């Protein structure tokens, strides 16, 4: 493995160990900017890490970005690695981004479902869920994007433990979800929460479990439009945007419905690049362009968050 994040191969998929080593290396290279926080342990006992990017002052508002909650969506974890490096490169170089990081912290959870991710590397590349067991069922895992306390268990999730959209026995039953819930609740000043999935080329905002428009729908819609326009400016990749329920389907217990219910106005979820051919098996050659274009949309959301304090 390279000893520097400069020689790390961002155009390749990596294992959990490699990504965790990358994180350690990045922290070692930028001790004044990046730190690693352990927010919990997975069902199988793996550490759950979040990178904190901060320019020093405590008690700042913050932006949260997570990738890879659905383990088989490998381009998202790979993009997360690229984002981490990009943050360290652009701070002090890009004036807009520098202003953001001089005012707010950024938390980046690159592997949000470590057990599932390890399982995709060892046993089943198509695994989506966590690896928790359900008493009385031979089937394993819960969909961590149906396990949040927002419309939990309603239509748009499955009660069947064998389903890929199984919601789990109760809200926050998955430690991977509960760890984020505890972190976000304790932090109390997260102002934007962006959860990244693949594929379908969508930018979505609440709600997923009900058709009622979110109170901030007009602003979220305008911001989404600006974000997907920025994204498309690089390679012409077209994203649709809108509320989850109207743009794709009803989904209960989803991440950003919970964050929005906690008062995090700028709650979004992405579905990254879809070439129409590979789905979750997006070739590694697509990683960097996917991450580059997504970064432009992220920047738009982060800058808006900076300029519209609440």
């Amino acid at each position, binding site marked *: *493995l*390279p000893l520097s994040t400069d*020689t790390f*191969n961002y155009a*390749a*998929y*990596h*294992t959990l160990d490699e990504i965790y080593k990358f994180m350690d290396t990045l922290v070692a290279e930028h001790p004044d900017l990046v730190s690693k926080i352990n927010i919990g342990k997975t069902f199988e006992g793996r550490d759950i890490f979040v990178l904190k990017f901060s320019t020093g002052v405590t008690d700042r508002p913050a932006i949260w970005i997570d990738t890879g909650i659905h383990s088989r969506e490998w381009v998202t974890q790979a993009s997360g690695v690229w984002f981490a490096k990009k943050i360290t490169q652009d701070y002090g170089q890009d004036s807009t981004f520098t202003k953001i990081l001089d005012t707010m912290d950024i938390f980046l959870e690159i592997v949000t479902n470590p057990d599932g991710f390890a399982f995709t590397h*060892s*046993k*089943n*590349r*198509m695994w989506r869920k966590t690896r928790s067991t359900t008493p009385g069922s031979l089937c394993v895992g819960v969909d961590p994007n149906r396990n949040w306390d927002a419309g939990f268990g309603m239509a748009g999730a499955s009660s069947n433990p*064998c389903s*890929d959209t199984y919601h789990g026995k109760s809200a926050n039953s998955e430690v991977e979800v509960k760890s984020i819930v505890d972190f976000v609740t304790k932090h109390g000043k997260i102002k934007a929460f962006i959860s990244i999935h693949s*594929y*379908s080329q969508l930018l979505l905002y609440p709600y997923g479990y009900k058709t009622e428009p979110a109170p901030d729908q007009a602003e979220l819609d305008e911001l989404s439009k600006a974000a997907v326009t920025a994204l498309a400016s690089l390679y012409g990749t077209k994203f649709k945007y809108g509320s989850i329920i109207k743009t*794709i*389907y009803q989904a209960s217990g989803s991440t950003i419905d919970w964050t929005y219910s906690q008062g995090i106005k700028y709650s979004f979820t992405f579905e990254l690049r879809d070439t*129409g*051919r*590979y*789905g*979750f*098996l997006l*070739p*590694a050659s697509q990683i960097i362009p996917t991450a580059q274009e997504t970064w432009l949309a992220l920047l738009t959301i982060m800058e808006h968050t900076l300029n519209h304090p609440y």
Partner: protein
Amino acid sequence: KEDFVGHQVLRISAAHEAHVQKVKELEDLEHLQLDFWRGPTQPGSPIDVRVPFLSLQAVKVFLEAHDISYETMIEDVQLLLDEEQEQMVAAQTRA
């Protein structure tokens, strides 16, 4: 390791609501062991589903019988996985 030899991923085009409903029926047939990468939502939105080799004939017959068009997005999932694995090994070797 799970073996995906012969599994295909089909991209289904549901032209109208009746097609969407028909694909939802497929989703409920557990014995086919279908893995919906992108579920049926609304007419015009693509539906992607990984179909195990043993279910391919049944699924294609079902779709064709209901005049639902589809194309094969991935001919053999295992081939792609093998390529992906080779790329990772090559990248590690280079590193």
